[in-house]
Structure formats: C-alpha cells, structure tokens
C-alpha cells in the first residue's frame, strides 16, 4: 500500500489542542509525518484543501442489536454505519438477547468486530446479571477479558434499587471502571410516551415527566459523591438534570454526562402526526431544556455527544405511537445535523463539537492510546476522518448502511459531511466524487 498524503486540510485535534492547516502522511496504519508542504511524490495524494481533518469520533452509546436482533442491526451493518458517520470507535449497549453480562460474550463481540476492521468496539457490560437489577454481573471478569470492559450499565432499564447502584459504584472502583446510569424512575415514567406537559395533553398520550429523570440523576449524584466512584449519566434531557450535574462537578463529584443529537436539535413540538420516528426515551423535551443542554455542551458540563443509535425494524416502528418501541438511528446523521444546527447557527464552534465527539467521550471511558485517542500525531494509529463543511445534501435514511430507517432527520437538508474515514490507515469510508 502506498503512503497516503492528505494535503492542505485544517487539522483539528483536541488531543494535541491543534488547529492548523497541515499535511498529514499515513503509512503502515499510522500517522508518519505531519507538517507543511510535504512532497506528494510516490504517495497517493488526497487534496483536502478547505476540508477538516480530525481524529475519528467515539460514540459512547449505540445499540448494535447483536446478539438477538440481527434483523434490526448486526455488528457489520452497525459498524459500517459508524464509519460512514465518522466514528472509528463505538460503545455498544448490553441490552441484547442474551444481555452482555459475562466475559465470553463481550470477548466474542470484540474479536468479531476486530475481524471486520471497521470501527473499534468497546462493549458496555451489564451491571446486574441478566440486566434484572438484582445481583451484580461479573464486572471484574469482563474488565479482565480481552474486551477490557470499563463501563457498565443496565441500559434501557434504570437501576431501581439504590442499594445495588451503590454496590456497583463501589465495586468498579477496584479497576477504575465507570457506571453508566440510564436515569429513569420507572414508576414515574410508567406507560409514558412523550414529555409530560403541554404536548402530552394535546396528543392525548401518557406523559414522561422530567422528574422521572431528575430524581435518579439526583440519587446517583449523591451515591457517586459518597462512594467516590465514577458515574456517567446517559442521554441527559432536562434543564434541571444539567443544573444538578453542573453543581456536582463544581463540588468535585466524579461525574460525566452525554447528550444525544436529537435532544440537542428537536423539541417535543417537532412530533408530527403521531409518527413514531419521534418516539424516543427520554422523550423530546421543551425548548428551554434544549437551550440548557446546548449551553451545557458548549461549556463542557456535558462531556460528550452520543447518538443512542437504536435501530428498529419498520414493522415495529410503523405502528400506533403507543405500540412503537423507543429509539432512533443516529450515527450517520450525527455530524451533519450537529454541524448544520449547532455550528452553522452559532451555538457551538466546530472545535468544541469535535472535542465532544473525540476527547470528551474518551475521557468518560478513561481511554488512552493505543486503544483510542492518539490523535493526529506522528506515531499514532491512523484513525482519522475528513469532513467537508461546504457539502450540502439531503439525509436519506434509505441509503444508510444501518439497517434502521427510523431517523427523525430523514429528508433534512444539511451542510457538512464525513467524506473520508481511515481506520488504522485503511480507507473504510470514502465519498466518491466529493473527495
């Protein structure tokens, strides 16, 4: 394979705090040279003037449905979707069938993902056996396995038992693991479909109050503070949750948080004609919540954008709103939507957006090179993306690599696109004709 020269891109690398127009040479899977006016002779040259080069993104929260629901997504289709969206590493959630609650299962997934050579897989293991919320799963063994699991969650179901949550937080301190909380009190959200308030009244649907999230956020912050363990809060959606996280961080609690693109861009009022493609958990909230989430993301109170990519089969989603499962697919629309709606509209600058997609999530997991996070530096593994910020296009869920078509941004006109993804120096995604 010839050496690859990516010429003239604006290199934004949050890991080295770099933002400069540079040439980058990739060979033997690694970045071998970074500089100005590098010679193209004998090298395959990609002219990337006017484009942006950054480290590949890390998605903390995806559902790859394997094992159990391979009709909805497989490792291959999910990781293919990841690299098309610019993600060279993803964390898959354990709410599979069977759940990812033991070392052999997570190891098997990681090894198979490695063979595919698309994005790296960092599985999130279960906190409790069978995700049942009773006894602890073998977190230590999952951590010791080749999967090197460091984050644990009973995602999809919150941990109702505060005693179990406390023990989980205490236990993972042994290997500096992190417990990922799905903050939802099931009694408060019981039967809910949309945000409780004006929209639940108008739509005649049962509401999920903001409180269902906030009481668990409050509880888990207290438990994290008390135990000194690392807590990560998944998909924050309310203004009050954000305020509590901001205060907790100021007190020195070891907490991190993520937000999804749909909670940053859509509000409850965007739900149209009972289309279940807008049915997500936590539900789309109010304009004030969205404003607060955006502010927190810009400030860094929220550390990462995570997509909560959740593919569902059309026969499950094309039904009555009440009967449809929660979730949207998001990896292939994340960057263009966030660039269009946040960066172009002045909510967040590009450097911060890339930070929340790279070094932000890396810090949540405590990932360091060589696993993830070498950045655009000589010697680092060449997990890179090239972004075309000028490219205008229309999101078409039917052209996704993901098997999921349940994308609320289907049909949106956006600006900005992932045009090239390199994984270990290999081109795993390239927009022909654009680059």
């Amino acid at each position, binding site marked *: 394979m010839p050496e690859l020269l990516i010429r003239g891109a604006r290199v934004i690398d949050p890991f080295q705090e770099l933002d400069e127009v540079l040439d980058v040479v990739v060979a033997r899977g690694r970045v071998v040279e970074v500089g100005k006016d590098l010679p193209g002779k004998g090298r395959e040259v990609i002219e990337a003037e006017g484009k942006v080069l950054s480290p590949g993104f890390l998605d903390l929260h995806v559902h790859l449905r394997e094992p159990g629901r391979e009709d909805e997504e497989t490792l291959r289709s999910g990781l293919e979707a990841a690299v098309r969206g610019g993600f060279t590493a993803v964390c898959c959630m354990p709410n599979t069938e069977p759940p990812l609650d033991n070392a052999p299962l997570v190891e098997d997934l990681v090894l198979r993902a490695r063979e595919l050579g698309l994005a790296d897989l960092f599985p999130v293991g279960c906190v409790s056996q069978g995700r049942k919320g009773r006894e602890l799963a073998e977190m230590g063994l999952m951590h010791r396995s080749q999967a090197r699991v460091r984050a644990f969650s009973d995602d999809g179901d919150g941990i109702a038992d505060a005693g179990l949550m406390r023990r989980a937080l205490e236990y993972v301190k042994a290997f500096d693991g992190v417990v990922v909380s799905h903050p939802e009190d099931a009694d408060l959200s019981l039967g809910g479909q949309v945000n*409780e*308030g*004006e929209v*639940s*009244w108008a*739509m*005649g*649907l*049962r*509401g999920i*109050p903001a409180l269902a999230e906030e009481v668990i956020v409050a509880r888990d912050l207290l438990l994290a503070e008390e135990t000194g363990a690392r807590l990560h809060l998944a998909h924050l959606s309310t203004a009050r949750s954000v305020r509590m996280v901001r205060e907790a961080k100021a007190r020195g609690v070891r907490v991190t948080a993520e937000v999804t693109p749909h909670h940053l861009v859509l509000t409850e009022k965007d739900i149209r*004609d*009972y289309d279940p493609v807008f049915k997500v958990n936590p539900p789309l909230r109010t304009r004030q919540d969205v404003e607060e989430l955006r502010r927190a993301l810009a400030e860094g109170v929220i550390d990462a954008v995570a997509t909560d990519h959740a593919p569902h089969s059309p*026969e499950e989603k*094309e*039904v*009555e*709103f*009440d*009967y449809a499962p929660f979730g949207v697919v998001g990896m292939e629309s994340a960057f263009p939507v966030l660039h269009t709606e946040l960066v172009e509209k002045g909510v967040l600058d590009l450097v911060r957006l890339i930070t929340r997609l790279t070094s932000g999530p890396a810090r949540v997991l405590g990932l360091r090179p060589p696993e993830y996070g070498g950045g655009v530096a000589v010697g680092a593994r060449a997990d890179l993306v090239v972004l075309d910020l000028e490219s205008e296009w229309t999101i078409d869920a039917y052209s996704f690599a993901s098997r999921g078509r349940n994308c609320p941004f289907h049909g949106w006109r956006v600006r900005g696109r992932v045009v090239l993804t390199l994984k270990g120096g290999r081109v795993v995604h390239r927009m022909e004709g654009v680059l």
Partner: protein
Amino acid sequence: MSFPPPGRDFYGRLPFDPMVPPPKPARVREVTGGTRKNRAATEKARKYQREEVVELARRRHLLDVDDLEGEEMEHILETARSFSEVMRRPIKKVPSLRGKTVVNLFYEPSTRTRLSFEVAAKRLSADVLNFTASTSSVEKGESLKDTALTLRAMGVDAVIVRHPAAGAPWLLRRWLDVCVINAGDGMHAHPTQALLDLFTMRERLGGLEGRTIAYVGDILHSRVARSGFKACLAMGMRVIAVAPPTLLPSFVPPGVEVQHDLDEVLPRCDVLYILRIQKERQTEGRFPSLQEYVSLYQLNMERLGKARPGVLVMHPGPMNRGVEIASEVADAPHAAITSQVAAGVAVRMAVLFLLLGSGEGGV
C-alpha cells in the same frame, strides 16, 4: 361539491328550507345593511363562505375539532339541525350517500358511538361495513397499516375509526386516500362527541357565548374533555375543570379554570358535564377509594339542588350510575343525556354528508 345546490334538497327535487341558504359567517351578519358597499361585502363573504364549505369537503377528514374553522363548525351544526328535522319524518332515509361505502373500524368496544355512526350512515343510504377488533384478523396480529391497505384496496369511501391508541386516525390518514373520521382515539380526541355536545347545548340553552360549563371527573384520561374544551372555548364558553389534582393534567390549556371543589363550582354553571370514572384509576392510585370519590365528586340530588335552576346535566355515556352520577340525577329533567344520543345521529349524518359530498352527478 358536498352540499345540494341552492333550491334543491337531498332528494334533488323539493326545496329543503333549512339548508338554503347556507349559514352566514358571523362577520357577514354585521354587514347585512342595504348600502351598496355592504351588499358587496356580503357577496364577498358569501363567496368566501362557499369556498370554506368546499374546503371542508376537500379536506375529507375529521380528526379533531381544531381541524374545523369557526364557520365550518357552525355549518356542521346547522346541517345537523336540518337532519334532526329529517329524523322527525315518518321516512327517515335520504339518498344522499347512495353508492358510498362507509366502514366502521372499531378497535375498542363501543356500543353507542358505533351504532350512532351506523344509523347515521344508513339514513343517508350509504352501505355500512362493521369491522370490530374481536371478529377480525386483528387477533391474528394484522397491523393497522395492513388493515388500512386492505380497506384502500376494497375501495371504501370513508373509514370511521375508534382506537385505543391516540393518533391512530392520523396514521390512517397517512396510509389511506379516503375520508377518515375519528370516532375516538385513546385519551386524545372525540370530535363528533364534542360537536353533538355543542348541538345539544345549543338546542337546550340557545346561545352558548358566555355560558359556563364544568367538566367533572377524570379529565386527564378523557378524550371527551380534550375535544370538548376546544369546542366550548371556540364557542366563547367559560370552561371549568373540576377534579382531584391527580385526575388533572400537569398542563391545563389556557382559558380553562381549574377547581377541586365541586360544591363551590355548582352555582356558577349552566352545564355540568359529568365524565365517566374508570375503576382502574383507583388501583393506579389516582384516588383513595370509590367511596371517597363518590362523596366528593358524585353529582347527586343534593348537589343538583345547589346548582342553577335550569342547569343542564350531560354525560357522554356509558354511565356508572351511583358512581359519578346518581341515578335520580340521570333521570331528572335536567339531564340531557338522551338528547345527546339523538343529537349524535344528526351530527354524524351532517359530518358524513358534508365530508362525503353527494357525488359528481349531484343528487
């Protein structure tokens, strides 16, 4: 075109007075003077009104009351009045919808609404098919979408849908290119109920503007209240919601007054609208016991005595006698409950007639 041309009735022969001319929009009434300027304004308004009516037929759906502009709601009520006169004739059937096929698609048990629509459609000479969830392929797991596609392939003209899930009629509208009428979806909407309630109140009280209606009971879970609030507010009525806080939404629409004490509200009301209380609300922890609910919120004779003398008592049915309403109250002269049922047929005839029109060849 959905209504008979001027001077013709549903039979296409005899003049049908209540229908001609069609009702005038409110703003026209203010300008029906004799000056040339006013006549021009009247003409313009008539033309506008004609377009409105066509619009209603073109829209082809009735999903909730806020689909209707002010004039359209008025037009339905006026048309219903004509039909209630038809219902007093010895022969109650008119041929307006001859050749049209109407499907009653009922996913939820319902007697009165289904029968009411069926009678309404049959009196307009439409063919009526009944599809109920218990006797259909729903039990074999057919999706709403597939059912919709089947009905479309059969070439029906209208689908009247009752469904336990809110929004089902909106999904049907997306999948079907025929008229969809919402006969109640989950906790969400019940537009023909709201219209028939307006009709009943108007017949009994005269004008509605400035009148006060109190909805009493399980407002949170009630599609009757949701559509009713909108319809009553559109008519300029004052709306009071009376219930324990656990049966009220966290968001109350603007213009609706919230009260928890029924006895305090009684003397202020022209209409007491009693909602059915479902027993499972107690096990959900919405109120402590049926006994407590009855003693605090049941409309009984004693409470009726505290209300205005001419107060109208309404209930969407089916009633739980002895729970939300005492039996004697249900049978008292104040009660308009059977008038509501009669109004239901007339209003549904009007809705079907206006939405389905009378065919290209006229009547």
